[in-house]
């Protein structure tokens, strides 16, 4: 039987103020990249902190590659970049990474070779000899990534790894994560940057108010929600109700200034939008539009972004927010 990289069963942390997370059960396979999403204050960081041994669960169990969380054996398997952290300001960046290498038990000769390489890779380079107090927030985040990776761990927990980085830095971090994934590392990614999750992760879970709301394959989530847009010339509002009645589908005017301007005038082209299951339905709607004597200029598929999925998933739900 294959041991999961991360396996949590009913993991719960209840704080006196009602915060924390409840009954979280997930399984992440070896070499998988897992995205953990949720609004602020949903309990994502609490869950990760339990997995890395910073806080003790109220109930439930979890294992990392078969080792119970909080044990030294499980800590040897992980690299962790916390969301809110600061390194010792009186050390240089290189000394911080060396300290973490020592605590991870990395051999001195290996560390001597690996540390400069890592500092280069995360974009710190020669500034590794500067004291951490002179680092910007982005530099500290890069340093955090180097510390998380210095022990060459099979599982990497990253809590908002690029929140303080500029677009170039974000791209570099994404490249590093892609490389880690290619090396077969298990990546657990807590991020508000949904494009990172979308680009990198195989599976994901959505946490709200401390509980898993949805989970599944990223590709499935995005595929089932494919929308199509039709640019129609000579559109009249009558066509919309006729199409809806005839097809039984929910076809709407696409949002956007150009689209609505066209619809209001009742003359020029406008965009219609519908969620469709397959391309056969697209062909059917095409024929219906042409059948009504209108011109079909363009048909495009609009693959739903994870951000929209996230917004849809949490909209209308009560969530406690950062300050509850």
């Amino acid at each position, binding site marked *: 039987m294959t041991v999961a990289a991360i396996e949590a069963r009913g993991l719960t942390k209840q704080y006196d103020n009602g915060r924390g997370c409840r009954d979280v059960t997930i399984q992440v396979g070896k070499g998988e990249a897992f995205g953990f999403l949720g609004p602020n204050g949903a309990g994502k960081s609490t869950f990760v*902190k339990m997995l*890395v*041994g*910073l*806080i*003790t669960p109220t109930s439930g169990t979890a294992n990392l590659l078969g080792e119970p969380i909080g044990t*030294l*054996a499980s*800590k*040897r398997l*992980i690299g*962790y970049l*916390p969301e*809110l*952290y*600061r*390194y*010792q300001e*009186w*050390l240089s960046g290189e000394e911080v990474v060396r*300290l*973490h290498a*020592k*605590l*991870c*038990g990395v051999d001195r000769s290996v560390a001597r070779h690996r540390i400069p390489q890592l500092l280069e890779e995360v974009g710190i380079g020669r500034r590794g000899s500067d004291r951490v107090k002179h680092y910007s927030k982005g530099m500290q985040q890069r340093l*955090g990534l180097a*510390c998380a990776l210095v022990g060459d761990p099979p599982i990497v927990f990253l809590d908002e790894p690029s929140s303080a980085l500029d677009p170039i830095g974000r791209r570099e971090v994404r490249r590093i994560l892609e490389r880690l994934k290619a090396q077969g590392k298990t990546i657990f990614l807590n991020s508000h940057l949904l494009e990172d999750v979308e680009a990198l992760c195989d599976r994901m879970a959505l946490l709200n108010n401390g509980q898993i709301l949805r989970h599944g394959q990223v590709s499935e989530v995005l595929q089932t929600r494919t929308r199509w847009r039709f640019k129609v010339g000579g559109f009249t509002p009558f066509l919309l109700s006729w199409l809806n009645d005839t097809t039984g589908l929910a076809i709407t005017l696409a949002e956007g200034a150009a689209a609505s301007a066209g619809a209001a005038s009742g003359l020029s082209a406008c965009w219609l939008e519908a969620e469709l299951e397959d391309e056969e339905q697209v062909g059917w709607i095409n024929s219906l539009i042409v059948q009504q004597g209108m011109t079909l200029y363009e048909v495009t598929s609009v693959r739903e972004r994870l951000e929209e999925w996230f917004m849809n998933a949490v909209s209308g739900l009560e969530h406690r927010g950062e300050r509850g």
Partner: protein
Amino acid sequence: MTTILVMTWKELLRKRVMLLTLMMTALFLLAFWFVADTLSLDIPEDPMSGDYLIEQFSRGSFILMLGFFFGSFVVAFLSIFSSFSVIAGEAEQGVMQALMPRPIPRSQWYLGRWLGYVSLGVLYALLLFSAILLVTDVHSNVPRDFGALMKSYLLFASTVPMLISVAMLGSGIFSALGNGVFMTMLYGAGWLGGMIDKVSGSLGLDELVLKPLNNITGIISLIMPSDSIQRRMLSELFSYDEMDGLVNFSSSFNLFSLDRIPSNSFLVYAAIYTVAAFVLGMLRFRRKDL
């Protein structure tokens, strides 16, 4: 653990805590030199007379008491302020969140930090102890019994692990700022209790007043034994038991009176107090959510 211990030394050196302490100590010793010089000006100049020897010992004792009065404060505050925010402060800043997921037992981290602070504190105490003795010796006379000197140094330095253990325990319970206030108040209470104990004898108070007062100061010294330990340190330094007939320690120096000297049982209590604070602090830290 060695990594953490070295990190703690580096922290105290890089943050210039030790440098600042040493600079202020140099200033204190300079002032102390002049005070000691002034106090020894009118000692009768007949080295062969018994009065000369007694007077010189009395003056030397007074100068030493003065020096250690300040010295105990410095050692106590160095111990408290170097360690009061070690857990709460680092957790609030986020340093702990990056370090604690590493494969190192929390108990080893705690012990490493404790040893780091204690070793530097004890070394500093040795430096200060020697400097005070040296300055006094230049101007007057100091006891030269190595056994007595050793015992009194160990007692002088014993407040370092005691205060650091309590400060680290508090740091696992309170916020950094809260623990700073708590430790200052606690040490202050111990000092005040000792002071009341010293002066109450000379106020000529009725037994009805003295008894409850003694009870209160006794309880205070149980809560914070540091001041009582310092009194015992001075009594060991001056071999109080042997010299009491020759030198009147109580009437000469009210503030530094050595009337009530803590017993050996009290020293055992102080040792248990230190160990208990250390163990409780470690247990608390092992279970603490960061």
